[in-house]
């Protein structure tokens, strides 16, 4: 009777999961999911990379990758999606489905270590369905399970490594341990290579737990050994990255002296501002941590192997969450929920592992209720129906039409416009990302594309900061008035039979340059360097060098007439005149 019920439950939950996947695909194709989630420049990294390399025939070595390369498993899954369909919209959809199916599979493998396989599959289907529905309801954080580049790949690596850890500890033969060990090194290497967040989420917690256990019991030294295997992956990842990967973009801020209390306030504000259903779901995070602590307290003396494994999982949850909060708290970067994905996505999984059969049934009931609520809070109700499958973003269509009318194909735009234009353009537009002063933004793009001439610019009227391209700076480089058009909230300037080139250096590197130039203690040397920069139409760099020369002269007590001469040169440079170059 129990077996029959079990197989009934597995069929219902798996069918439900497939149904939810179909619903997701339907919602995606009808534009019912926030297009900003799928079609933002960060999420379009792989479509842009694959198009540039496989369709446009450019080289991978010329790319500047994001600070994390997201190769494993994101790139592998996107490669499968790319092979399966040539339409970029379908590729994004296939990727989302593949990612969800992989998540479902890994969760069932992880749960089957602790509970019956049939139950594990059913629970996994229920959790995966719930996550898809919550993702449809609100993009942050559950919608990240649909896209690449937002650290969901790292979460998948986390699950794989947890499974390998448990297999390693339970392996009885040396041969079995050897195979699991080799696989661990392999997965750890590619996980670190892809996304270093795994070091904080998994590697560091395991090492800390391993060190703690190695002082308390001999058998537990195995955890430290596993930690050592993970550590081996780190130098391997560094070496492989140096040899095979091109330049990687750097974060504008790193681990510094941020305030943990500020970050906790941001976390609380973030949680309060979430929709009610997400708020309810995120309560599982503190509950899972509480249950883990409770389990550790109640079973601290249990010597059973299964209890030891559960204790390890409980410790992993607590240490990983604390470390992630600590590092995110100390980081200079603003709080973002994507750093805490294991906490949000794996909370019900950990509860299934730690709770007994009776309590698991309550959890199943809670998840079923959450799923029903998510279905009832139908996300499609208020959204306009747009056929994304057969169409593409309206502003891209508008720019395509204008470029076609003027017979131009190469242009510049701010980062958040340039990548969608590159990926979705039907007119073969090549639009490169630039920052406010019109210099290249060397981030998630092929740097070889920055050379050559450009015939138009797309200015986002709502952008701010470095994303607001200066119209004055662009028009200063033109001799004729450009043609001006409006494409929704963007202004498109198409140059009147003339082109511009981009300066070689990005203004983002100005600070680094200034630091180097501060060692130059000769105003004439700075003047010569400014002449060379101005000769390359790099007036911003020339102005910087001339300012440094003037300050140097003033500091050193130069005569007023000398300072005035340099100032007059700087003035000529600012209006774009090159007659001061001799």
């Amino acid at each position, binding site marked *: 009777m129990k077996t029959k019920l079990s197989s009934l439950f597995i069929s219902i939950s798996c069918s439900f999961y497939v149904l939810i996947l179909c619903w997701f695909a339907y919602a995606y194709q009808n534009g019912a999911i926030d297009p900003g989630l799928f079609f933002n420049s960060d999420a379009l990294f792989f479509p842009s990379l694959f198009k540039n390399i496989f369709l446009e025939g450019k080289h991978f070595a010329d790319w500047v990758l994001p600070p994390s390369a997201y190769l494993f498993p994101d790139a592998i899954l996107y490669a499968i999606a790319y092979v399966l369909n040539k339409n970029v919209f379908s590729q994004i959809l296939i990727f989302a489905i593949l990612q969800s199916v992989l998540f479902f599979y890994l969760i069932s493998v992880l749960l089957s270590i602790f509970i019956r396989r049939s139950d594990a599959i059913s629970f996994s289907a229920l959790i995966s369905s719930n996550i898809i529905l919550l993702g449809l309801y609100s993009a942050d954080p559950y919608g990240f399970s649909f896209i690449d580049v937002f650290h969901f790949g790292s979460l998948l690596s986390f699950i794989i490594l947890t499974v390998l850890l448990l297999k390693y500890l339970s392996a009885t033969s040396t041969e079995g341990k050897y195979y699991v060990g080799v696989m661990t090194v392999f997965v750890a290497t590619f996980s670190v290579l892809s996304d270093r967040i795994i070091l904080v989420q998994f590697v560091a917690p395991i090492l800390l737990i391993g060190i703690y256990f190695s002082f308390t019991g001999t058998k537990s030294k195995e955890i430290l050994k596993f930690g050592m295997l993970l550590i081996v992956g780190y130098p391997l990842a560094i070496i492989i990255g140096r040899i095979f990967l091109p330049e990687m973009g750097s974060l504008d801020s790193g681990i510094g002296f941020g305030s943990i209390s500020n970050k906790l306030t941001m976390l609380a504000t973030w949680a309060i501002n979430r929709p009610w259903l997400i708020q309810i779901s995120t309560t599982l995070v503190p509950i899972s941590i509480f249950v883990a602590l409770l389990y550790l307290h109640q079973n601290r003396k249990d010597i059973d192997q299964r209890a030891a494994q559960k204790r390890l999982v409980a410790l992993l949850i607590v240490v990983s969450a604390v470390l992630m909060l600590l590092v995110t708290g100390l980081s200079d970067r603003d709080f973002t929920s994507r750093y805490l994905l294991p906490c949000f996505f794996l909370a019900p999984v950990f509860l299934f592992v730690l709770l007994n059969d009776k309590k698991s049934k309550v959890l199943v009931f809670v998840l079923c209720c959450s799923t029903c609520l998510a279905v009832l809070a139908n996300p499609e109700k208020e959204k306009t129906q747009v056929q994304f499958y057969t169409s593409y973003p309206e502003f891209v269509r508008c720019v395509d039409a204008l470029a076609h009318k003027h017979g131009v194909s190469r242009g510049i735009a701010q980062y958040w416009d340039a990548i969608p234009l590159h990926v979705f353009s039907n007119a073969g537009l090549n639009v490169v990302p630039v920052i406010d002063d019109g210099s290249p933004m060397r981030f998630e793009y092929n740097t070889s594309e920055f050379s050559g001439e450009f015939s138009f610019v797309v200015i986002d009227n709502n952008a701010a900061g470095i994303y607001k391209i200066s119209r004055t700076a662009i028009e200063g480089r033109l001799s004729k008035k450009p043609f001006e058009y409006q494409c929704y909230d963007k202004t498109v300037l198409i140059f009147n039979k003339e082109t511009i080139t981009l300066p070689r250096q990005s203004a983002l590197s100005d600070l680094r340059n200034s630091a180097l130039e501060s060692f130059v*203690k000769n105003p004439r*040397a700075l003047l*010569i*360097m400014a002449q060379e*920069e101005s000769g390359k139409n790099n007036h911003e760099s020339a102005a910087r060098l001339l300012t440094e020369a003037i300050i140097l002269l003033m500091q*050193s*007590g*130069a005569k007023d007439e*000398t300072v005035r001469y340099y100032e007059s040169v700087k003035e000529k440079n600012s209006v774009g005149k090159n007659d001061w170059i001799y």
Partner: protein
Amino acid sequence: MKEYFWIGEFFVKSIIVAIIFFAVVTMLLPNIKNIREEWKGFLSERENQALVLSFIQNPVALTISGERDLVRKKYADAALKFELAVGLLEMHGASPTTIQPYQVRFLDAKRMAEQSETK
């Protein structure tokens, strides 16, 4: 005979260690030849020459080096050094009489550089 087997084992181990050592050293050490070529390429640009020469903070030293360049018929290099010498004097507020001879040498070298270019 069995007692001497460790020599073979030691030999194999030392070869493995040596290979690993040289592989790591080769991987870590930059290619000197490439660096030399890159340095030459770097110095072939006028702005980079100015950057490197700006570390010389003595106008007389720059003038001596410039005069040597004139002898070697490297007029552009000499002009650059004289100009940088003028820059140092300007920076420290030297009088026009002090700057004058350096300025004359700079203009001479510049003219010679232009003439040699047209030839």
